[in-house]
């Protein structure tokens, strides 16, 4: 293949973000092309869905399909303290049209199965899937993205030209690595590594609803930044993962599986109780659990969605929600853009970018407070801001008339943090300011090419005074 293909909208990556984007675009009468480099089904992490993820799936008309696949039902999240004597629980909830709270359920999924379902559904509804890897962004002189160069599976090369390119490439952060966006900054949570696998024969609770429902997501706290998850993904299998300081792993000089087996029981007594044997049905995967944030992630001809522009810390399972919600928010704007209704000044998608930024900033404040001030956090959940915390856990973070909620304003007070949205798109984001010395990853003269290269180097790049103080 060496052809040049033209389309209105090109979606790079056919994960949940790309598939949701395709389905929402189809509803706007746009038939997108999805370019995906991998053969599906493929293993992926990110198995616990929030209440808002379920709402997106319902809006996409996929509830029956989720039920048919018998994905384990999540009524809420239970968080165990380090001695497992205490725990707190947040139920899954939704809001009705009048913003009244009601109990709801969501699911936990085996991602290989869920992602394939999403992709097939997008194709069934009319999206065109092309197997191939985006290798280079094509641009006009003014910087506008006009599509990508592609390497097809047979090794040949081609081009896909598009009026709008959606980057749904996940942690590959395609457009950021192509330096189409603003800088990609390293965030606060970059010293941990996640190890995870699927375990058979784990002990679940026995209830049918509430804190003791049998398939809830469990989070087990050990120390600051050191924790584990327990997420049922089908009737027999539970996803178990632990996030540990990178230094612990390096010191032990073990294989990931040896390390997992030797450390998992010491994370939390409750986890030990629930895992009488360690029979794995999946290899032990390892992901460096670093966080990053891409500035200027929309522009002429492009929008980055989900992990392709930001990843904070997976503790509260927000990833799939964020990527699908951003896809949902972007679709009508892309329609307006194609219809020539967005003033095509500097960046037609700037407002969308700020709306997404504000949403994830709410999550970042929540996660930071959890790690920095667990007692205040537990008090908020338990008594002071129970409803607002339920919203935050459900991932209701984009509803600008209700957010930032009083709880989030309280997080900011405790973190001594204010947020403004009028600074320039290249400034160091708050999530990177704890570590200004490692912030300027992506600067025109940066000695470091990519985040991955930076992580390998370990200590980081030299201070860039200008970027550090630009706040």
């Amino acid at each position: 293949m060496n052809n040049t293909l033209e389309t209105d909208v090109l979606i790079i990556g056919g994960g949940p973000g790309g598939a949701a984007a395709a389905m929402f675009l189809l509803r706007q009468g746009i038939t997108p092309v999805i370019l995906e480099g991998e053969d599906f089904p493929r293993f992926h992490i990110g198995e616990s869905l929030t209440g808002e993820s379920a709402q997106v799936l319902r809006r996409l008309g996929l509830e029956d399909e989720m039920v048919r696949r018998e994905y384990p039902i999540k009524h809420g999240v239970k968080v165990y303290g380090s001695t497992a004597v205490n725990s707190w629980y947040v139920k899954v909830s939704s809001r009705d049209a009048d913003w009244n709270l009601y109990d709801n359920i969501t699911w936990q999924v085996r991602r290989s199965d869920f992602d394939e379902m999403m992709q097939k559904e997008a194709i069934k509804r009319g999206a065109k899937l092309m197997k191939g890897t985006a290798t280079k962004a094509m641009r006009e002189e003014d910087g506008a993205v006009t599509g990508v160069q592609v390497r097809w599976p047979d090794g040949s090369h081609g081009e896909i030209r598009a009026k709008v390119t959606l980057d749904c490439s996940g942690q590959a952060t395609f457009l950021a690595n192509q330096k189409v966006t603003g800088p990609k900054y390293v965030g606060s949570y970059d010293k941990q590594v996640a190890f995870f696998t699927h375990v058979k024969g784990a002990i679940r609770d026995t209830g049918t609803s509430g804190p003791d429902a049998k398939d809830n997501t469990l989070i087990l706290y050990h120390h600051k930044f050191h924790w584990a998850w327990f997420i049922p993904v089908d009737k027999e299998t539970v996803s178990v993962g632990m996030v540990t300081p990178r230094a612990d792993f390096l010191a032990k000089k073990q294989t990931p599986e040896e390390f997992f087996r030797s450390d998992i029981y010491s994370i939390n007594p409750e986890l030990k109780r629930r895992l009488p044997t360690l029979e794995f049905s999946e290899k032990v995967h390892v992901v460096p659990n670093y966080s990053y944030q891409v500035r200027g992630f929309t522009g002429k001809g492009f929008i980055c969605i989900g992990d392709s522009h930001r990843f904070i810390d997976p503790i509260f399972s927000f990833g799939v929600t964020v990527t699908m919600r951003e896809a949902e928010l972007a679709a009508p704007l892309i329609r307006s853009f194609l219809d020539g209704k967005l003033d095509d000044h500097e960046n037609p998608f700037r407002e969308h970018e700020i709306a997404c930024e504000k949403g994830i900033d709410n999550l970042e404040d929540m996660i930071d407070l959890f790690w920095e001030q667990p007692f205040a956090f537990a008090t908020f959940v338990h008594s002071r801001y129970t409803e607002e915390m339920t919203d935050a856990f459900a991932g209701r973070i984009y509803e600008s008339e209700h957010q930032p909620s009083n709880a989030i304003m309280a997080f900011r007070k405790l973190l001594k943090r204010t947020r403004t949205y009028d600074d320039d798109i290249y400034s160091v984001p708050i999530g990177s300011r704890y570590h200004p010395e490692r912030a300027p990853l992506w600067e025109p003269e940066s000695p470091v090419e990519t985040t991955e290269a930076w992580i390998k180097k370990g200590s980081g790049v030299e201070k860039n005074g200008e970027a550090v103080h630009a706040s």
Partner: protein
Amino acid sequence: MDHIPPKLKEYLDTARAPLPPVSDPDEPLQIDSLGLIRLVAFLESDLGIRIEDEELLAENFATLRSLGDLLEKKKASAT
């Protein structure tokens, strides 16, 4: 410890059980986070002392001295 009312001292000693009553103002109270949530509820409803969001820092509740300092500061700013 002047700012610790007797009722609060009593509450803390009970909350800490089976640990012995606190005698040293700088000894860690060793109340876990759910215990702290109950302590805040006690301060607010039984003693009528409102704890602001930004005062919900574990270090304010770590020892008798830090708790006393917090109450003193609150009293000072109230008058």
